């Protein structure tokens, strides 16, 4: 997936995405971090075509998603998106949440959809909760179902918007474990996250995002030992101190 010269401005002159170009190859894992309100979520939503960018292009496997006449539903069907606040369908049980798009978007038969949904739930180790409703699950379990819902269609890329930051600290571990499993399977992932130990372990590249733009890019090692930009340096120091306190 790739984007070129992407812009998104919210009135009044609040620029969330300021001329951002970015590329992620198949099988890569990249992690975006930066201060809250810097536009990371908007950037991710623009890539998923959930928020339409004002200017610039998004490409998925060479195909331009931003030109006129593109079927956005079909484009979104190829992208997995995991939300910070999860947004499971509350009237459906876990397997129902995962099945919905398989039935309604991929038009799979009832039996095939059920089987694929169970596989996806197994991948996040939630198969034993398949018949429970979101309200009966813990936050961490809900987010794992959210991930299963996103990966069940075998999307080309998985975009995760702070998947653990709305969870209690003791529940983030199980979600991180799930992401680790996905990484081991070679899933292409772009993750907005401040889970630094996890980043160090799985990310091929880290991206420091501030004030609507990419400030610095590099391997995790660079950020942990010697960030190039002052802003990244300051942010990392604060982040590491916070992690130590916890």
């Amino acid at each position, binding site marked *: 997936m790739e984007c070129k010269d992407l812009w998104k401005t919210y009135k009044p002159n609040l620029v969330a995405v300021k001329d951002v170009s970015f590329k992620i190859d198949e099988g890569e894992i990249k992690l975006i971090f930066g201060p809250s309100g810097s536009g990371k979520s908007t950037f991710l939503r623009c890539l998923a075509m959930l928020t339409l960018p004002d200017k610039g292009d998004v490409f998925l496997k060479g195909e331009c998603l931003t030109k006129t006449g593109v079927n956005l539903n079909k484009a979104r069907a190829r992208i997995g998106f995991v939300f910070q606040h999860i*947004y499971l369908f509350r009237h459906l049980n876990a397997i129902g949440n995962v099945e919905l798009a398989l039935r309604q*978007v991929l038009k799979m038969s009832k039996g095939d959809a059920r089987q694929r949904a169970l596989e996806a739930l197994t991948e996040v180790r939630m198969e034993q909760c398949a018949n429970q409703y979101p309200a009966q699950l813990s936050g961490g379990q809900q987010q794992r179902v959210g991930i299963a819902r996103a990966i069940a269609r075998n999307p080309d890329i998985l975009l995760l918007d702070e998947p653990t930051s709305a969870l209690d600290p003791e529940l983030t571990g199980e979600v991180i474990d799930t992401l680790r499993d996905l990484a081991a399977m070679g899933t292409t992932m772009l993750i907005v996250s401040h889970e630094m130990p996890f980043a160090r372990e799985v990310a091929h590249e880290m991206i420091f995002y501030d004030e609507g733009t990419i400030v610095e890019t590099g391997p995790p090692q660079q950020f942990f030992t010697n960030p190039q930009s002052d802003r990244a340096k300051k942010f990392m120091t604060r982040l590491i101190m916070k992690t130590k306190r916890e």
Partner: protein
Amino acid sequence: MDLIQGLLQIAGGIATTLAISIFSLILGLAIGLPLSFVRTYGKSLRFLVDGFEKIFRGIPELVLMLLFYFGIGASFPFPFKNAFFTAVFVLGLRSGANQSQIFRGAIRGIGEEQMVASRSLGLSRLRSIAYVMIPQVFIFSTPGLGSEYALLVKDSAYAFIIGVPEIMKKADLVRAQTYSYLVPYFAAAVFYILLTFPIATWLDVWGSRRKKKLGL
């Protein structure tokens, strides 16, 4: 005519009262549900929905009933000279205006996020409405729908004025035959309570249980 006979005659109107109420509830649903989504998501058609709601919520049912049956019915005997049809039609339109507001509140209560999550999976807006929004809208709306049903049962009594043989009409006939004012009207009152209260309450309880279970 003895008392039992009179009561049986009034009870004979129950089926018609129920038929008017249920058919107009269904007509109101068929109008109100699409309107609530048009009002929420359709930008340009918003004012049409607002206009429809204002008109049908603002005119007394009695006036509408007489207007359609005698007024418009004079030029269009079909279908408005059929009193039962006109009663269902008028109450259905009014209920559509009410239900549109009930459902709109439910859509707002469910929140935009459910829609975004559904669109993120590649579902079209229409499919998202059908499979994600509407099932939750109904759960959210059960108390409102319960009171709307009760309202329709009560307002079906206006059909008496155009001669539909429902409870009120029958009670009035018994009154005319027996010269008793108290018993027939009191019997009608009891029948109305029996038709409204249990169902509205049941809907309310069922809805709250369901909501609690789903954490809505």
